[in-house]
């Protein structure tokens, strides 16, 4: 009798410990992934975006993305459009924050106007693609609540629930590769009705400076609309040594002129 009570208590405490560790382990993995990517300082990369509709028709966009790593707050980024030609020079400057809304400015080259824009529209599509703004913004640990799901060889599956109610998702299921610096292999996105909306697969991984894994191909498939967006990254540059001065409204105008 006593033993069975003890066993019972032991079982309960194990299950509590397990429940705690599912959340803790999820967070731990996200932190490990963040830590593995720390110290890249800055990067410049060219991006070709191919949008495919359900009939297979495609259209292309060319962009250049500059990123500045910050540790005390979220990263800064500057995106410049080079194609289609009618929007060439259109640029955005984003200061991501670990907590609260991001700050974002848009530069319109035709009238040389810098406009502060609301970062409220997280769930909307980025330039007609299957990527939402929130999919492309800096992935800060603080933006999600975590639950560890399963370990499958070197792959770790973690559920991430967005903290921000303005997110378009109830949850994302992220597959990390623990043997490769906790790089992300796949993300499944569940919409607000909790049905599978999109799958993002990362491929053509390349290791930079012996430490930073960067996927050169992102493929986002929307299961509900049957549309696809393919991102191809090229010419990663980690040597540019960008600084805060390269991420100002003055730099935004200079980049888009």
């Amino acid at each position, binding site marked *: 009798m006593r033993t069975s009570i003890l066993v019972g208590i032991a079982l309960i405490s194990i299950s509590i410990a397990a429940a705690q560790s599912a959340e803790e382990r999820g967070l731990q993995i996200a932190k490990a992934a963040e830590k593995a990517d720390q110290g890249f300082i800055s990067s410049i990369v060219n991006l070709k975006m191919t949008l495919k509709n359900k009939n297979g028709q495609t259209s*292309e966009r060319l962009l250049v993305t500059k990123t500045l790593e910050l540790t005390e707050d979220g990263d800064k980024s500057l995106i410049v459009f080079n194609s289609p*030609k*009618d929007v060439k020079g259109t640029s955005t400057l984003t200061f991501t924050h670990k907590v609260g809304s991001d700050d974002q400015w848009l530069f319109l080259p035709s009238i040389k106007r810098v406009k502060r824009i*609301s970062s*409220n529209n997280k769930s909307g*599509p980025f330039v007609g693609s299957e990527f939402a703004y929130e999919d492309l913004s800096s992935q800060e640990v603080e933006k999600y609540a975590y639950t560890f799901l399963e370990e499958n060889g070197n792959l770790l599956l973690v559920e991430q629930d967005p903290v921000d109610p303005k997110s378009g998702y109830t949850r994302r299921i992220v597959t990390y590769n623990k043997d490769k610096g906790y790089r992300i292999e796949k993300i499944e996105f569940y919409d607000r009705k909790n049905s599978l909306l999109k799958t993002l697969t990362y491929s053509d991984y390349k290791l930079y400076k012996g430490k930073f894994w960067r996927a050169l191909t992102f493929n986002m498939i929307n299961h509900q609309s049957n549309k696809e967006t393919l991102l191809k990254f090229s010419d990663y540059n980690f040597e540019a040594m960008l600084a805060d*001065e390269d991420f100002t409204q*003055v*730099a935004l105008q200079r980049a888009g002129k």
Partner: protein
Amino acid sequence: MKVKTIHFIFVLLCGIIRMYSQDERSKKVNHDFELELEGEYRYFYNDALFEDQKDHFPSFAVRPEYKAEWNKGYESINFKGFFRLDVDDERTHWDIRELYYQKAKNNWELSLGLKKVYWGVTESNHLVDIINQTDAVETFDGEEKLGQPMAQFTWITEKFGTFNFFYLPYHRKRTFAGEKGRLRFPVVIDKDDLTYESSASAWRQDLAFRWKHYFDIFDIGLSHFYGTGREPLFTFDLTGNINAFYPIINQTGLDLQITHNAFLWKLESIYRRADAQEFFAAVVGLEYTFSNIDGNGLDIGLLGEYLYDERDELALTGLQNDIFFGSRIAFNDTQDTSILIGGITDLESSSTIFSLEASRRFGSSWTAEVEARIFNDIDQNELIFSNFREDSFLRISISKYF
């Protein structure tokens, strides 16, 4: 565009290129050439108010662009040209929108040459924006500008914001519609008939300054301009003669935007002082966007602004006590389809101007635009707009990019 000015800028640029081409570190130069060809048709569907005014305006425009960048993009030479051929002889015009050398280093940036600079936050009127002369024959909304010769120095500080200093050595006059053109006064205004208050005429050496900063959700700009104004001043003497000239002005401007969730709260205001005139003007408004409405990316923005101008009926814009309301619809599709509809209505009379602007891309290098401006029930007593009361129009334009 005066030949003398172009010569001046050309000599300046050549000097700079020579100076920097000797620098071995300048390394790789990136060249970039772009060309836009545009066909446009404007149709004014009401009978003209004044003699010789036409109804149909087929038109053609060319916009070449060239950029050379080196020193990792921190140094560049930029050129934007413009030419339009139109039924209205005054609207047939060419311009160098931009031709300048730029260098940026750490926390400063320098630009020398013809350049365009935009200041402000509101949508229906651009009060604070004063650096460039308006290309008044090009568009109705006044958003097209002439290239302004300048030396611009920008100093960026992390704590105290950005300081901009402008030296503006030459003034450019505004062009008004010609004999055949619409949107004009009974008397055709020849820009050469307008004089200057300054004895140096166009060569008065003008100065401007702007401070721009942001704190959290606040974006603020404070500016001052001292020089020959961009708007001509019309004065009437006792015998009824019109005297039109460009006055020397001191203008202080404030622009403020508060970005709070989906709300943008906006304010622009100016105080302008000249010997012949002193006045205050302001625009206050807001923009609210319902985003991703259908889960497919549809954004609908609602805009409302109040416009005040102490000049009352003498305000060249005709916006002295008016309300602007509008809606911006963006489909966020692969063709970037967007529509802006709105109206400006006078609070003291029946006068209202409705407008629609829509644009869409076709393929990867074509775009089409549709614009409509409808002058509705314009009060005969409106000093400016009463002349345009029969000038409602539709415009369609198609552009090809190379």
